């Protein structure tokens, strides 16, 4: 099905199953430990050997030699693989650095060897006996230095690095009220629960990897390219994923090394990265420096808005697209955005939950708070005042498909009790706590990706949906079952969902919050094809047929689904493809975050006391799983605001605090009550599901609301994330 015209009334609009808070259908498997994860596939890959990755001890330079003699002689060791004996390897299109380094080293902890042994302990122990002799090179690790020679990247997520409308410089210069501030965000780690892990096995020249990967179709192509084998010879299986947040979008070292190891020892090999290896071996969200200039009239109408972004990455890498939302979020006739990429030799920067917006809004939405104060306009009102219903760069010819930012702000403010906020900072005190409230807009672009599915009904009427779509903890199993149940007129319990296997039809995968809308749209397309076939079999006109209660009904007749299917069953493959509606219409998801903090007036410790958010993201397919996504993302926003930072050691060129003890993410005690409101919205231009994504929307702006609340509580305006207590006390009155 090609989706190139806005949807009209369709069978999803019956919303008897879709849109209901159905419990996760995979929940019982997970709580019982019966959902098999990549490192635990003894059921299908028995007698595995264990691989241990060795990472480079230097960030930049060359391997002179690797002495594996001692390691190979160690108890239980089956093989030691390095660049010297792994065979010729390619590099995936989406990897910036090679997954097996040597002789050139591109970053710290880049894999340089794999030790394969009978047991995990033997492999890890023998790894310490591998002697790697390096010549250290001169690396570039300091973003502040890198910005001096930073260059415009070729593109930023497929769009130009720079945009400009009107006369920004002139309008900013002559604006009555100006904000001109620079904000910095640090490198961040995804810190998902399940580490990168793979079990690999070969049968002749056919490779199967059971892995933890968000994008099965990409993984097949990248593995084939890296191993220089045919994609037909690669099967990727990834049915359960313990979190990804973008860290598992790509083929990573665990998968490649497991495949190489299995080939070398002729039996299944499994490789999991140890937690301390993850921040430097894999990808991370790159640090940014962002300059925001907003010029407005005295009463807060934006006249000029400019957002300049600097970020670093390895040569050949990409810039963090932190300026993109500024192209779309607020009105303003004169505008410009720029992105500059500094070459750094730090580990590979790449996508992490809401790449671009997550950190872009940390800057933009604090700048808006500063503008609100400068104009003396309420921050909610300021955002409402500068709302715009079309793409402000393209003009009215490109309207938003749906945009309920104002409603989110108003309803969110009402629920949160925003009117009780004292606009003057540092005024509200409870005991030794300074209390403040902050607001920020949420914005995340909507993307749609082609997605296929196979829907089969067996002779007993049981429905099975198969697609290589993944469930990264988001609830994909459940919303796909809901979609099929809705369209075929059955209960969720009548549907089996099989995911994450490259032998199934290719799907959108999980990334960029496109997964839910795109993959269910693929199931929609396939079910609609199937409905046509079944109606025909039943002798009905497809348009007239009603699928409900396990029956196909038309013309006063009702035929049980299984009778229409027949004893042999039926199976159909189809897919959704998207036309140019995302070009004709600006498509995005919106929201408003509210936060109340209590800051210890002595120690500067910040406690988030309440969070509330209102969100508009098209049809909410399952309010329960959607809420889980949003509160998880809000939690990640708190992490970004208050504690998350990969600290760069500029001498050695690596992230120093590379484990979960020292890379702080919020714990339960940091997160209070979170209130989530979804606005009723159907977006007929997004897909036949009329849905958009929510998985990333919740992080967008959440941290800025925390930052603005800190300011309101204390009068201390911080612009350097994370806002740790040392920075807070730097601005507090003497205790």
């Amino acid at each position, binding site marked *: 099905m090609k989706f190139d015209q806005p949807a009209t009334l369709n069978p999803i609009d019956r919303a008897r199953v879709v849109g209901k808070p159905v419990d996760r259908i995979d929940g019982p498997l997970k709580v019982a430990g019966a959902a098999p994860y990549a490192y635990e596939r003894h059921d299908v890959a028995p007698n595995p050997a264990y691989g241990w990755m060795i990472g480079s001890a230097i960030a930049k330079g060359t391997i002179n030699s690797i002495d594996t003699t001692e390691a190979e002689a160690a108890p239980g060791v089956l093989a030691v693989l390095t660049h010297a004996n792994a065979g010729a390897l390619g590099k995936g299109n989406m990897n910036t650095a090679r997954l097996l380094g040597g002789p050139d080293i591109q970053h710290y902890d880049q894999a340089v060897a794999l030790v394969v042994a009978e047991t995990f302990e033997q492999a890890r122990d023998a790894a310490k006996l591998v002697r790697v002799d390096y010549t250290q090179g001169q690396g570039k690790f300091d973003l502040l230095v890198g910005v001096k020679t930073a260059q415009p990247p070729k593109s930023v997520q497929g769009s130009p690095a720079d945009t400009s409308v009107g006369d920004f410089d002139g309008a900013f210069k002559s604006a009555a009220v100006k904000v001109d501030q620079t904000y910095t965000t640090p490198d961040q780690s995804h810190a998902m629960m399940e580490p990168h892990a793979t079990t690999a096995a070969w049968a002749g020249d056919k490779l199967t990897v059971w892995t933890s990967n968000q994008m099965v179709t990409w993984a097949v192509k990248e593995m084939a390219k890296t191993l220089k084998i045919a994609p037909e010879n690669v099967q990727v299986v990834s049915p359960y994923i313990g979190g990804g947040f973008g860290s598992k979008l790509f083929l990573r070292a665990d998968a490649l090394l497991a495949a190489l190891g299995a080939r070398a020892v002729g039996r299944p090999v499994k490789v999991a990265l140890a937690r301390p290896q993850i921040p430097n071996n894999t990808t991370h969200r790159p640090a940014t420096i962002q300059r925001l200039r907003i010029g407005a009239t005295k009463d807060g109408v934006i006249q000029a808005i400019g957002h300049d972004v600097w970020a670093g990455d390895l040569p050949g890498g990409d810039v963090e697209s932190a300026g993109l939302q500024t192209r779309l979020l607020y009105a303003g006739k004169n505008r410009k955005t720029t992105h500059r990429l500094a070459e750094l030799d730090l580990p590979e920067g790449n996508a992490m939950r809401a790449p671009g917006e997550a950190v872009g809004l940390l800057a933009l939405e604090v700048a808006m708070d500063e503008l609100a104060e400068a104009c003396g306009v309420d921050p909610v009102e300021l955002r409402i005042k500068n709302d715009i219903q079309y793409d402000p760069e393209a003009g009215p010819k490109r309207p938003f498909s749906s945009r309920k930012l104002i409603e989110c702000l108003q309803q969110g403010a009402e629920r949160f009790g925003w009117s009780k906020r004292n606009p003057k900072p540092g005024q509200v005190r409870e005991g030794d706590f300074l209390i403040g409230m902050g607001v920020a807009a949420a914005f995340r672009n909507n993307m749609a990706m082609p997605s296929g599915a196979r829907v089969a009904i067996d002779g007993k009427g049981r429905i099975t949906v198969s697609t290589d779509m993944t469930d990264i903890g988001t609830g994909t199993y459940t919303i796909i079952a809901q979609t099929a149940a809705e369209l075929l007129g059955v209960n969720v319990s009548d549907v089996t969902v099989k995911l994450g296997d490259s032998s199934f039809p290719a799907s959108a995968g999980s990334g960029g919050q496109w997964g839910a809308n795109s993959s269910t749209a693929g199931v929609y397309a396939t079910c609609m094809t199937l409905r046509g076939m079944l109606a025909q079999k039943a002798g009905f006109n497809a348009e007239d047929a009603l699928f409900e209660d396990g029956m196909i009904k038309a013309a006063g007749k009702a035929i049980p689904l299984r009778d229409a299917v027949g004893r042999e069953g039926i199976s159909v493959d189809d897919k959704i493809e998207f036309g140019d509606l995302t070009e004709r219409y600006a498509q995005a998801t919106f929201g408003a975050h509210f936060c109340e903090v209590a800051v*210890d007036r002595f120690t500067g410790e910040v406690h988030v006391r309440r969070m509330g958010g209102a969100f508009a993201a098209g049809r909410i397919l399952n309010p329960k799983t959607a809420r889980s996504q949003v509160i998880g993302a809000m939690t990640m926003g708190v992490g970004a605001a*208050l504690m998350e930072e990969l600290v760069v050691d500029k001498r050695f060129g690596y992230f120093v605090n590379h484990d979960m003890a020292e890379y*702080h993410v919020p714990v339960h005690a940091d997160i209070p009550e979170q209130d989530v409101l979804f606005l009723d919205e159907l977006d007929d231009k997004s897909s036949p599901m009329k849905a958009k994504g929510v998985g990333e929307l919740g992080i967008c702006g959440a941290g800025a609301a925390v930052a603005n609340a800190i300011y309101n509580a204390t009068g201390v305006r911080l612009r350097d994330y994370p806002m740790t207590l040392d920075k807070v006390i730097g601005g507090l009155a003497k205790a």
Partner: protein
Amino acid sequence: MKAFTYERAASPAKAAEAAVANPGAKFIAGGTNLLDLMKLQIETPTHLIDVNRLGLDEIAATRDGGLRIGALVRNTDLAAHKAVRRDYGVLSRALLSGASGQLRNKATTAGNLLQRTRCPYFYDTTKPCNKRKPGTGCAALNGFNRNMAIMGTSADCIATHPSDMAVAMRLLDATVETITSDGTKRAIPMADFHRLPGNTPDIETALAPGEFITSVVLPKPLGGTHIYRKVRDRTSYAFAVLSVAAVFDKQGETRFAFGGLAHKPWRVEAADALGSRGAAAVAEAALAGAKTTEQNAFKIDLTQRTLAAVFAQKEA
């Protein structure tokens, strides 16, 4: 993890004897720190002496009104003990501010005293660290040192001791009781138990090779108000950026000990006497001779501010 041999000790003296006989040996109790370090090959014992079955898990009153805490009393049990909660509140609070419930269930009293620093360079075997590998240098000195020590540091090491429990024990003037392989027993005041780094940061305590901790003795209760204020970068499960243990007794006597400032629980007796003059005076005396870096200089201000919070809490 290096391959190692293992034995279960039959008595404290036998444990000490086994340790002397195997120079590469380590005692293992809860293992909450040692096992992590072994996996990373930061600790590479050739022999483990399991002391978990030695008893030593009781808390008993001493003749002079104090408490004797067995070396193997788990942190959870110590924090929850009725007499500890009643008479040594600062100790109970310090324990509960540390680690997580699961870790406290395993971690022991002696093991807590002996835990190693969390300096990230100590944890990274590709980096210099005089504590891990004497003579290689200190990567923290000019590296990431926001959370490093500002008191009693040396050119060789600026690591902190991570324990909360030890700070409270130092405040309470606890003594550490030990036994050696020949059966000799001694009592080491907490003030002398942990060492400053000097030029041997790899030697962290006063324990002789093989010397085995049997118990920690708390003197009779001080009474008064007990406060443990831990400042950290998140609300739970983080090591202290700074902590203050304080007792304000009924006679108006005060004493203060600090975590996150030094290679050992930090206490300056001269500062104790200044409680009546307020937070600034105490901080100034406690921090005399402080040596800060650009990243950790805030600890000076934070110490005073946290003391002020402690004074305010006392008044509340």
